[in-house]
C-alpha cells in the first residue's frame, strides 16, 4: 500500500488569492527516499505541511482533492496520532525548540516523554542521537541559547530520536557548515538504510543526486518534473528550465554539446568519473 497518495490536490492558504499547490498528484511509497527541489516560494514547505497533515488540520484555507495517508483520508486522521507517525523537521530550526526545557538533553528527549517511553529508553535514545549528531558537548546547555547551526542539530536530533516510520525533512542543513551538512546527510543515509520513508527538501542538488530515489521539482505550486532521480536530473529539459542541476550533469551535457557525448549523463561525481574512464578515445 502506498504510504501517502495525493490525488489532484490544490491548496490555498487562508487570506491568499492564488493556490500554493496546484493539481498535485503523486504517490509516496514506503521505504523510499524522495527529494523535493524548486525555487523559493515554489511550494516545497507547503507540500511538507500537506504530507504531515498540518494541512488541513492546522492551516485552514481551502483544500481540494484527496490526501490519503496509510489508506485513510487525512481529514479523518487524528492529528495527534499523526504526530506520532510522521516526524517533521522544520525549515526554521528556531521555531522547533519547545522553549520549556532547561537543557538540550531534555529538549531532545521531549518527544520520547510524550510518547511515553520508559526512563532508561529515553536516556539511551537521547544519548545515541546526541552522539550521532555530535552534540554531546551541548547536552547541558539551555536550548534557547544556541547558535543557529546548533539549534538545527538539536531540532533534527529531537525529531529523529522519536524514530517514526516516516520523516518529512525541510531543508535540514540551511544553517550548517559543510561538515555539519555532511553529518546530517550521513544520518539521513542511515535512516534510508533502516527503510524509513523519507521526504527531503534540499537545495544542495549534489546531495539530492547522491541519495534520493525519486525527485519532485516544484515551480509555482506545480510539479514540473518528477520521477526517478537519474532520469530527472539527467534530463536536458531541466537544464533548459534554468533549474539547478548537479555539476556532473552540467559536465555531461557540455560533453554532448561538444560532440563528445558520454554513454549516459552522469549526476554524481563518481558516475562522471566512471563514464569518462569507460569512454573510448
Amino acid at each position: 500500500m502506498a504510504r501517502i497518495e495525493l490525488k489532484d490536490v490544490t491548496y490555498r492558504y487562508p487570506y491568499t488569492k492564488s493556490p500554493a499547490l496546484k493539481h498535485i498528484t503523486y504517490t509516496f511509497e514506503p521505504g523510499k527516499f524522495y527529494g523535493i527541489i524548486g525555487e523559493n516560494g515554489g511550494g516545497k514547505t507547503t507540500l511538507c505541511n500537506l504530507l504531515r497533515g498540518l494541512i488541513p488540520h492546522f492551516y485552514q484555507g481551502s483544500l481540494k482533492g484527496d490526501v490519503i495517508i496509510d489508506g485513510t483520508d487525512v481529514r479523518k486522521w487524528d492529528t495527534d496520532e499523526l504526530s506520532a507517525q510522521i516526524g517533521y523537521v522544520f525549515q526554521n530550526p528556531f521555531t522547533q525548540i519547545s522553549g520549556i526545557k532547561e537543557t538540550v538533553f531534555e529538549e531532545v528527549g521531549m518527544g520520547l516523554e510524550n510518547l511515553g517511553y520508559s526512563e532508561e529508553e529515553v536516556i539511551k535514545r537521547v544519548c545515541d542521537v546526541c552522539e550521532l549528531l555530535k552534540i554531546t558537548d551541548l547536552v547541558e546547555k539551555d536550548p534557547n541559547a544556541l547558535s543557529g547551526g546548533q539549534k538545527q542539530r538539536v531540532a533534527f536530533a529531537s525529531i529523529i530520536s522519536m524514530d517514526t516510520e516516516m520523516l518529512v525533512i525541510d531543508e535540514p542543513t540551511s544553517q550548517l557548515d559543510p561538515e555539519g551538512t555532511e553529518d546530517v546527510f550521513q544520518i539521513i543515509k542511515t535512516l534510508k538504510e533502516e527503510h524509513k520513508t523519507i521526504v527531503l527538501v534540499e537545495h544542495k542538488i549534489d546531495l539530492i543526486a547522491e541519495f534520493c530515489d525519486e525527485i519532485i521539482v516544484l515551480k509555482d505550486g506545480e510539479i514540473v518534473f518528477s520521477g526517478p532521480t537519474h532520469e530527472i536530473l539527467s534530463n536536458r529539459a531541466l537544464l533548459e528550465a534554468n533549474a539547478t542541476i548537479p555539476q556532473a550533469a552540467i559536465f555531461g551535457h557540455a560533453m554532448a554539446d561538444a560532440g563528445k557525448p558520454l554513454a549516459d549523463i552522469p549526476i554524481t561525481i563518481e558516475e562522471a568519473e566512471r563514464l569518462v574512464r569507460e569512454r573510448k578515445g
Partner: protein
Amino acid sequence: MINQEFVDKFRHYHKYGTWWDDLNPLTKFVVCFMVALTPIYALTWWYGLGVCVIVSIVAMTSKFRKNFFSLAVKVFLIITILLVVLRQIGHRATSITPLINIFGWQWYVETLFNSLNRASFIVGFSVTMILFFTTTPMRDITYQLEQMGVSHEASYVMLSSMQNIIDLKATAVTIFDSQKARGIETTGNAIKRAKAFFPTLAPLMIGAMQGTEEKTIALDARAFSVKRNHSFLRKLRPVQGYEWAMMAVAVIFNIAMIFVSFKILKQLPVTRFF
C-alpha cells in the same frame, strides 16, 4: 563523549541539595500558604515582622535566596513605607501622641502603629508567598500539578507563558536597541520614553502572536498531545511522610492562629492601636 554524571542525574529524583528546595512543591505550597494567611488574622505588626524574619531565615538556606531577597525586600519596603505615609495623611482625628513634625506635617504614634499593623498582613502574606514562588521553579510546580492530574496542556500554558515573558522582555530590548540605533530616543524623560515605547508595541505583539502559531506546530511535531501516558525525564521526589506531617502541622497552626488572633492577640495592649 556524553557527560555520564549529568545523564545519571535523570535516573534519580532531581536534587537541589538543600533541605527547603528539595521539599516537594506541594509541601512548600501548603506550608507557605497556611503560614501566609496567619498575619491576616493577627493584624499585628510584630507578628507580621516575626513571620517575615522566619521566612527570611528559611530563604537563606535556599539555593534561590537571591531571587527571594531581591523581590521580598522591595515588596517589604514599598508596601510598608507607602502605608505608613498614606496613613499619616489621612488618619488624624483619633490620634493623640505626637511623633514628629515635618514642616508642619504632624505625625502621630498611634497612626504609625495602626499603619504598621495594616501593612503587616499584606507584607506578611506577600513575603511568605514570595518564598514559595521564588524558591520553586515553575517547571517544578507544573510537574507536581501534572502528577496531581492537571493536564499536560495546562501545564504547558503555564510554562510557556513564563518563557514568553522572558522572550518578550528580550525582544523588547532588541527592538529598543534597534530603535535607538535608528536615532529614536529611548532614554531621557518620561514623555520621550513613552514616545519611544509605543512604536515598539506593534512589532512586539505581532512577534508574540507569530510565536504562538509556530510553537503550536513545534509541540505538535513532538507528539505533544498524543493520547498516551507520558513519562518524565526529570522527576521530583514525591511527598515524603514527614512532609505530610509538616503540612498537617501548618494547617493546625493556621487554625490555632485564628483562635489566638481573635481571643488573645487583639486584647494585648501592644496591638490595640486601631
